[in-house]
């Protein structure tokens, strides 16, 4: 049992695992390990199956013309497929400057962790025949990959993840609205962010998404140092996003700070819970399997 777990990449230390390869490789290892650890699902598998033909209409994608029928009957018909995926998922990834921070050089930054988690989650969903999309945002939308389930989608997601980002402020409400527009049907939205933003704006956006029928999961990325404060003695703590500078003696305020972080997490849990949004705190020193399992559990609960 122990040897099995030891070979599962989803249970590796994230920083050590990330050092072994690029995002897509790490994501594959994680998903492979994760899938190996899953029990067989009672649900049947998903596939794209042929449904019907219809006459070609101007504007239709030429890829879907059945050329055999056109050759035999000189009629242009278009193949129609029954979309059997029951989920269209969009990962909304916060790439603001605050995400590019780690409390220790031995750990991944929050963004690095989130990118690898996003890649693994996308691959996992694609293997489940779900459509997966990606939206990266900071103070504006940096990149958007519409949800698709077809082959090559994961490559597009990986390519998008490798685009430069790290803006200044986070603007989750706008990104969530964008995601909602990209998802025409009811689906799953996974927000991966450090949530260093106003609760009210995020809550309002979440309620909107929920009203549109989306299932929303928020993965709150926290570096361990953000929970405990770095051991720095007397220091000036500066938020790289807002330039907010707070002088403090770590020894003096550590306890109060830890209380405050607990309160903030409780607030998010309360606010998002009231809006029907799943909320999970993810620490960057936790193996990828932990948040992956939580996010996948949400997907499994969907009809």
């Amino acid at each position, binding site marked *: 049992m122990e040897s099995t777990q030891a070979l599962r990449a989803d249970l590796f230390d994230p920083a050590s695992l990330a050092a072994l390869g690029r995002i897509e490789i790490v994501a594959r290892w994680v998903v492979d390990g994760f899938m190996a650890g899953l029990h067989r699902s009672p649900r049947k598998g998903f596939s794209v199956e042929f449904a019907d033909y219809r006459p070609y209409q101007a504007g239709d994608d030429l890829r879907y013309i059945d050329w055999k029928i056109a050759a035999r009957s000189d009629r242009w018909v278009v193949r129609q497929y029954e979309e059997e995926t029951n989920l269209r998922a969009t990962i909304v990834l916060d790439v603001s400057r605050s995400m590019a921070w780690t409390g220790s050089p031995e750990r991944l930054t929050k963004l690095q962790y989130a990118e690898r988690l996003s890649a693994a989650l996308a691959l996992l969903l694609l293997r489940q025949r779900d459509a997966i999309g990606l939206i990266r945002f900071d103070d504006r939308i940096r990149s958007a990959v519409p949800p698709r389930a077809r082959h090559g989608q994961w490559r597009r997601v990986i390519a998008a993840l490798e685009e430069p980002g790290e803006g200044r402020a986070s603007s989750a409400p706008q990104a969530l609205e964008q995601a909602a527009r990209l998802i025409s049907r009811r689906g799953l939205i996974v927000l991966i962010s450090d949530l260093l933003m106003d609760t009210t704006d995020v809550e309002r956006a979440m309620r909107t998404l929920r009203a549109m029928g989306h299932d929303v999961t928020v993965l709150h990325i926290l570096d361990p140092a953000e929970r405990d404060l770095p051991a720095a003695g007397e220091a*000036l703590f500066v938020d790289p996003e807002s330039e907010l*500078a707070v*002088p403090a003696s770590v020894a003096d305020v550590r306890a109060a700070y830890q209380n405050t972080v607990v309160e903030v997490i409780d607030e998010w849990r309360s606010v998002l819970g009231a809006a029907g949004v799943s909320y999970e705190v993810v620490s960057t020193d936790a193996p990828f399997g932990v948040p992956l399992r939580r996010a996948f559990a949400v997907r499994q609960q969907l009809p």
Partner: protein
Amino acid sequence: MSFLAPLYLALGAAVAVPLLIHLMRRRIGARIDFPAARYLLRAEKEHSRTLKIRNLLLMFLRVLTILAIAFAAARPLAEWVGAGHAPTALAIVVDNSLSSSVVVNGHPLLAEFKSMVRDVLSSATSADRMWIVTIDGNVRGGSVALLRDEIERMEAISGAGDPGLALSRAAAVVRASGLGARQIALVTDGQRTEWQNVPPLADAQIVLYVPNGPVAVNRAVTLAEARPSRWTPRGEIAARFQSTDSTTYRITLNGRTFARGTAAPNEEVTVHASPPERGWLAGTVELEPDELAADNSRPFAVWIGPAPGVTVSPGAGQFLKDAIDVLKSSSRVVDGHDIAVVSADELTTLPALIVAPNDPVHLGAANRALERMGIPWRFGLRRSGEASARGPELDGVTSTARYELAAQTGAVADTLASVGQEAWIVAGGHYVLAGSPISPDATNLPVRASFVPWLGGVLTERLVGEPGQVLASEPGKHLPRPRWADGIETADGQRTPIGDALDVPDRTGTYFLTLNARRVGALVVAPPSGESVLDRYSARDLAQRLRVNRVLVAPDAGTWASLSFRAAARRSLIEPALIVALLLLVAETLVIRRRAALRPAA
């Protein structure tokens, strides 16, 4: 409260460090990127009151810790609450000088001092170390019982003592005790003449008591002297008295009153006498007793004998012959063969006044005569030129021609006069030897008015009887051993050999000096006249004269006794201060750790 090292209080300025840290804490430290700064800001806002209180508490604890350490470094001393005292090294200096025997209110002042000391001894514990130091510097230590006996036996000495020596020895014994609480208790009459020069004692702490009552009016004999010290047989007694008005006096000699009179204040009285007694005799000049009886009598000594017979040889010169004729006419000397006055080349007998020969041709014969008579001097090179002579009763005397007096092996003599660096007139056991002829060609001595008195003194004091003299001293002093004496005879006839030095007895009186059991001189022991002046310093004035670390002035005898253990009551505060500092550090640690205890379980 006092501090032994007050400069260390400056360490208290270090409180600026925690104060500055507290005030500048928001401006120091490194800049750290921290995305969750908003949580930190919120934490500080929500807990600012708690943080401020805790920071203020920490600041005060640190400030108090530094102050406590600086306080301890300054070595504070303060009185502790509570009865009793810590083990104390206490030296009680009792002024038992002659002036302490003055009677005040029907009792000697020393009796009051002794009573005060007994009170102090009754407050002592077995852990205390005690000494009694008398004003002459004698130190007695031991148990309280022994010291009680000592104080009962204590009597006033006959002199002023040595207050500086007494205090120095008291400071030394308490310093050497090894005890932390060291104290000197001084009880004195504060006599001005006694406390003129006191050496500084930087580390001494003294509790002082000086009586503040009126000073007794005192009469005293301040001078009693036989002039000359050898009467042949006539002489005179000089006396002076300290008194505010005329006073009657009595002069005794050999226990016999031979003169009475009345003297005006500070008048010098001279009484001529030609008593029938012979030999070395003791006498006194006395007043009616008053409050200070010890100075109402003053001793003197004199040798009385018949006028010596003198023979003058022709070679001695006309001036000597004429001068001796003058002395014969006043009956100070007579014709006879007791003393020869001769030129050296004519010397055949002793005692003799020997002068250098007028003719240098006789110089060899003169030296042979000196050798023959066992006189360890020889005439040497002739010296010419006028030079001043120095010696008693020889003011203005010059020498124009003289012979060098060369001392032979074993020569021991008194130099009565010298010229330049060389002896001119020397005196031995039975001779007086002059290096010049007594003529105007060689010296102006024979034409000076002082010549005849000087010659009379030489004949009647130097060359008559035994070669002794009268020595005067104060009680308890030490004198060089006189060559002409080997013992000292007390008033009761007891004779004591003289050692390397002559230890002057502690009691006033006349003591005869003896050689081979024969009286050859006298030692007159009398208190210094200053002891009779009873004017005293006030306690505060005397405290200022005592150059010591600290003086506590006791206003009365009871307070003096209670203050004698003040040093023990004033204990060091170093240990309490360090304990307070330690407790403050512990408190600071607890405050800091309490913060850690508040960490959330999450």
